[in-house]
């Protein structure tokens, strides 16, 4: 098995992975950096982020206000030392992107423009039309091309971390075009593998978002933190699940039920604001968890609109006018026309909540370090505890930058003065990956189909682990996922080719998703309270006495995972009321 030696290996080449790679290359040009991704960097799902990236830049705004919005938005489950670091670093990182050529929208005077976003009290969301993630990703990718020390391994699927002497010292990955497994020996590994929205059937997430990075760390003994917090974006296209950015509402779009009522006023986010004059942090600019929950209640009351794509509410942007829509929301208009046949200039568009983002992930501290020496993580796959129980829109694109860079700096610090690797020991462990793949190829007693298991998993998640949850449903899901994990051991590989075998990768991805889904569901069952995006019909209140803490789910092989808890870091903001009434409460 070929060995590739690197100082730092990065798994995932989206926003966080690329930012980490550039930080490594800039800080020490002598470092050998292996950037490993199952897709070409510009295919990474960062490209689908639309609305923008939050950082304090304008007069009248302050780091404290960004802190307060983030902590309150996260229903006090954010670690406040992390949020303090984040809001301070955010503007610098966004300026850095500007200096690398990101085409941010501009004010008439040539300064960077900002827009309104949900849950934010001030306009502080930098944007590049409604293709912000796309431009951030391409700016980072293109910038990375000038550093010869970043060696890319595009279309390599990561299999297992290599541990020795209690440290993470590399990984195995399969070159997808040849089926050959390679060992990457590295002093440190940064996981930046993205989220896991594909556990659910209806999601904004691309096909690649299957929790591979989370599973890598989890199986190596690093806990997954706060996995039960799954963000539903309130406005997805009802057929494809494609995202219609929050900027639709930031620019003034409103949500209507079947009677044409702006129903958010009935769920603590009123009174109604004047049409065309969106007011920050209230009504349509409330946070995503509250908006998605309001939809659920409207559905129970029979107030939704029946469409050929199922039950929906309507998002009305007609009053914005064609000029503003074309200037600020061109992608949204194009998506709605092509996939739904609705022109937002002339008609309201049907929307419904859609799984969008995992607040939880690989447990890291504010240095982006995990509990396993030598292993760091950043981006959606990580849970650094910035987003708490509910992420505010436009914080995650900045999180990629701030903590991608932080992971790189922490890794550089860590790899100083490390003892030499025991190559033979690492190779012996790498043979384990090879054996695992060989077993799949040679399996003759397979009885389960990959797509069948996957459908049972996604159906279970949708039915029992959605916007509102209860004990019975969660228990059923925990049991079911445990069974699916057992049955997975009998999954059949239909394609035995070594060349770009997507049947194989889908089988491996399913294994990752099942592990993540079980961790998520176990965390949700154990959390007997309602907080942010985790809402229990049987425990309807937030319970700070018992649950002002992070769920830590530990992998136990084929057995059920173990859950324990870690305290939330509170520095200056004690848990309080989340007020989205525009000051009327």
């Amino acid at each position: 098995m070929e060995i590739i030696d690197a100082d730092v290996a990065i798994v995932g080449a989206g926003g966080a992975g690329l930012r980490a790679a550039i930080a490594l290359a800039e800080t020490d040009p002598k470092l050998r950096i292996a950037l490993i991704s199952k897709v070409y960097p510009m295919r990474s799902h960062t490209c689908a982020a639309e609305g923008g990236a939050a950082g304090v830049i304008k007069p009248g705004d302050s780091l404290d206000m960004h802190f307060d919005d983030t902590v309150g938005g996260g229903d006090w489950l954010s670690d406040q030392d992390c949020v303090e670091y984040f809001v301070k670093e955010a503007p610098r990182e966004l300026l850095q992107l500007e200096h690398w050529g990101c085409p941010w929208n501009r004010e008439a005077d040539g300064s960077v423009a900002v827009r309104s976003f949900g849950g934010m009290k001030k306009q502080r969301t930098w944007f590049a039309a409604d293709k912000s993630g796309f431009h951030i990703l391409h700016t980072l990718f293109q910038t990375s091309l000038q550093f010869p020390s970043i060696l890319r391994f595009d279309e390599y699927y990561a299999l297992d971390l290599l541990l020795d002497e209690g440290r993470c010292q590399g990984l195995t990955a399969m070159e997808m075009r040849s089926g050959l497994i390679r060992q990457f020996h590295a002093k440190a590994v940064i996981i930046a593998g993205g989220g896991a929205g594909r556990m659910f059937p209806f999601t904004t997430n691309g096909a690649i978002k299957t929790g591979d990075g989370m599973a890598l760390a989890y199986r190596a003994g690093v806990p997954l933190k706060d996995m039960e917090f799954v963000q539903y974006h309130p406005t997805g296209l009802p057929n494809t699940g494609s995202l219609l950015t929050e900027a639709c509402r930031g620019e003034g779009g409103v949500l209507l039920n079947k009677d044409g009522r702006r129903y958010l006023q009935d769920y603590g986010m009123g009174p109604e604001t004047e049409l065309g004059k969106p007011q920050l942090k209230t009504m349509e600019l409330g946070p995503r968890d509250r908006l998605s929950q309001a939809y659920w209640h409207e559905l129970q009351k029979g107030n939704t609109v029946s469409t050929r794509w199922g039950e929906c509410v309507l998002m009305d942007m007609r009053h914005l006018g064609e000029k503003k829509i074309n200037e600020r929301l061109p992608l949204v208009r194009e998506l709605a026309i092509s996939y739904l046949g609705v022109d937002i200039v002339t008609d309201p568009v049907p929307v419904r909540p859609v799984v969008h983002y995992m607040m939880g992930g690989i447990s890291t501290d504010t240095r982006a370090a995990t509990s396993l020496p030598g292993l760091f993580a950043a981006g959606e796959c990580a849970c650094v505890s910035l987003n708490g129980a509910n992420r505010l829109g436009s914080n995650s694109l900045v999180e990629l930058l701030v903590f991608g860079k932080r992971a790189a700096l922490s890794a550089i610090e860590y790899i100083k003065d490390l003892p030499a690797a025991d190559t033979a020991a690492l190779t012996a462990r790498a043979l384990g990956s090879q054996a695992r793949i060989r077993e799949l190829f040679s399996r003759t007693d397979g009885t389960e189909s990959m797509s069948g298991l996957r459908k049972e998993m996604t159906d279970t998640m949708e039915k029992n682990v959605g916007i509102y949850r209860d004990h019975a449903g969660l228990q059923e899901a925990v049991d079911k996922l445990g069974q699916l994990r057992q049955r997975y051991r009998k999954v059949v590989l239909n394609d035995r080719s070594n060349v770009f075998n997507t049947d194989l990768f889908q089988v491996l991805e399913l294994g990752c998703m099942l592990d993540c889904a079980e961790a998520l569901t176990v965390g949700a069952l154990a959390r007997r309270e309602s907080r942010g995006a985790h809402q229990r019909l049987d425990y309807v209140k937030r319970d700070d006495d018992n649950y002002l803490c992070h769920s830590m789910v530990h992998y136990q092989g084929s057995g059920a995972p173990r859950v324990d808890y870690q305290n939330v870091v509170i520095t200056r903001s004690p848990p309080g009321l989340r007020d989205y009434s525009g000051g009327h409460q």
Partner: protein
Amino acid sequence: MNERMVHLEVLRYDPQVDGEPHFQRYEVPCKEEWVVLDALNAIKESIDPTLNYRWSCHMAVCGSCGMMINGEPRLSCHAFLRDFEGVIRVEPLANFPIERDLVTVADDFIDKLKRVKPYLIPGENKPIAEGEYTQTPAQLMKYRHFSMCINCMLCYAACPQYALQPLFLGPAAITLAHRYNLDSRDGGREERQQVIATNEGVWECSFVGACSEVCPKAVDPAGALQQVKVASTLDWFREHLLPGNAK
């Protein structure tokens, strides 16, 4: 919702077993509003798990799922079944080697992107602490549509020159270089000209314009290449014909 049977003829090739690529016919029940990618996913899920292709976002922004559909380079996530009648023929993107089934080898494109130095080479070095470079909306609009390229490679599949001369840098790479040349913050045009104002660069382009016709993001690479040609010609005149400007 209305369903209909759709017939697809899909190119199959596994270099480990096939001497030559061949076509395979599939019949798959499809919803009226589906795209070709949805049909492929339905095949993979319930008819033939050994079919291989790239895809991710299903919203025409990741650039993964370019293929030839009835002979035209298209994003399969943006090719609506309602626009096709009869058998739909699906092949890997033209002008690239086939890796497996609908998956092509993209190395040449990736290498060319890198060669044109597609990153900001600042004209004036400004520390981050001094804030952003000023750029007016008008300056932004000069290059913005050239920055919309999703690297889907459809323009290479459509380009007759790239088919004849694989050394040609091609539409997307040159457009990207031009995007940075037009950026008011950039000062790297001269470096990039050495790569793009060459026989393998813009002068290879015969201005057929197929690249702009197939671009799913209306980037207009043909327009970019024409602008590069005009600017390069002016450079030549300045250097060679205007007194006192000879290098």
